[in-house]
């Protein structure tokens, strides 16, 4: 795995040396902050009203009314933004012919793929960590429960891992970054909304579609519950995307 880390280090360097990381992170933080403070304003407005008219606490709770929706929105924002981070990983190497350096080096293909995944994942984690200043702000204002916050971050990162996996996969299909981003975005969105088809489908089919949907597994994390089946789902999903990437690159090599 030392080799995977070598690849990851190189990719991280190129993220931080180019404007990509800074632009993407800024956009992400601005959008997320905007949504967060909108939600917070709405919440304080409601709690003031509740106090005025009923003179008592009706169970308005920071966790349910601010933190949970803000994480939901973060998940959507990440869905829009991660394809931009992942689009370079293989597409750029192929385009600029640097891929031949990786291929002629004594490293396994799986190490290259994992390194690429690791680099994107590190960047995404950093972005999510930076955004946590909003939650810090809440901690100063009120007393939200810490447990669900932590599990929500875990859930978000696992979900982001799936986006990154799909992004790396999309990037392995082509040497054109735009196409890679569009495919990654399409796949991510599709895996997000696939649960919608559940209503129309038959009972068993509906259950399967529900299970496949990325959001479905997010719910329990947001409530503070870590269910092994959800973790397994996300990890399997990530593994599967990386496995597909391996298949694509391997077959390309032997075509």
């Amino acid at each position, binding site marked *: 795995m030392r080799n995977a880390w070598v690849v990851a280090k*190189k990719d991280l360097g190129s993220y931080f040396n180019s404007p990509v990381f800074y632009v993407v992170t800024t956009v992400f933080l601005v959008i997320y902050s905007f949504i967060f403070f909108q939600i917070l304003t709405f919440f304080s407005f409601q709690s003031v009203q509740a106090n005025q008219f009923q003179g008592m606490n009706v169970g308005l709770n920071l966790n349910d009314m601010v933190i949970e929706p803000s994480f939901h929105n973060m998940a959507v924002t990440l869905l829009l933004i991660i394809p931009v981070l992942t689009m370079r990983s293989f597409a750029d190497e192929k385009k600029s012919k640097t891929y*031949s*350096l990786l291929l002629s080096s004594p*490293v396994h293909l799986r190490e290259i793929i994992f390194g690429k995944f690791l680099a994107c994942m590190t960047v995404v984690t950093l972005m999510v960590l930076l955004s946590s200043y909003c939650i810090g702000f809440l901690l100063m204002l009120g007393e939200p429960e810490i447990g669900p916050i932590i599990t929500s971050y875990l859930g978000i990162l696992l979900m982001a891992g799936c986006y990154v996996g799909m992004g790396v996969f999309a990037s392995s299909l082509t040497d054109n970054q735009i196409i890679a981003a569009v495919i990654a975005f399409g796949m991510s969105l599709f895996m997000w909304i696939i649960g919608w088809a559940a209503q129309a489908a038959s009972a068993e089919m509906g259950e399967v579609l529900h299970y496949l949907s990325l959001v479905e597994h997010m719910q329990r994390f947001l409530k503070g519950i870590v269910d092994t089946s959800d973790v397994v789902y996300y990890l399997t999903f990530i593994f599967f995307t990386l496995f597909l990437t391996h298949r694509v690159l391997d077959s390309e*090599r032997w075509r």
Partner: protein
Amino acid sequence: MIEVKDLTKFYGPRPAIKGITFKVNKGEVVGFLGPNGAGKSTTMNILCCILPASSGSAEICGYDVFEESLEVRKKIGYLPETPPLYPDMTVTGYLKFAAEIRRVPAKKVQAAVDRVLEKCVLQEVRQRIIGRLSKGFQQRVGLAQSMIHDPEILILDEPTIGLDPIQIIEIRKLIQDLAREHTIILSSHILPEITQICKRVIILNEGEIAAVDSLEGLTSSLNKSERFVLKVRNSQNNIQDKLSALDNVISVKAETEDQFLIECEMNSETQDRVARMALENSWGIEELKLVSMTLEEIFLHLTLEEHEPSEVKNGVGT
């Protein structure tokens, strides 16, 4: 060291190389010569485990490039046609990465980087961003990358392309230095370059080996005649006949009214006699110069000589 048998590669329905067979021994420097599209880069890509062959086999140090490619990749250093450079990295950063990915032990990375920086004369640009270097410097960084792990075998695809004449000489010297401890395959479509560096040449044409020959064999078989151009100021219509009448002259072709291509026997001092004749007849010499054979002409020669068995020096696969 390197053994290639019947190697064939199809891109879709079109073959890029058709049944190539050759062998390179340890410590040899072999040149691939051929015009554009001959299949030089394709062959090299296959040897470096980047492309799969359609059929046939290639072995490096006894390891098959398809079956045991990891072992093969440990032993080779490769400079592809387009140097594999990351434009946003610094030269040192890039070479460090190359060393690490080529599995140079962590402790030796710095020493390896310093060594190739010196060898490829890159010290003064060590901290520069690769994307902002000139083409020649980029080429040198590519070359540095290929030898960072001190590989047994170096495969260099047109290593001197884009370099200035002084650098070309430097790099040739460097390759000759390396040749003492390494086995080297390099490609080029420049004949003089190959003749200076390589002991043996493999000539590829349209995906096939047109000839495998030692350099002496090749030059001697080609240098039975030499040719030069005579350009005169005062054109007269009997010049061609007069030139043809000289001893040792094989043929004279009037390229324009005042320019003639003279083919004569090797070392026959015909030039002197042509000059004397020009002076005596006051033609007015504007230019008298030797023309070397172009690659196309060598190919013509080689393909013609294939039909005369006595002229073929070594068979394919020596």
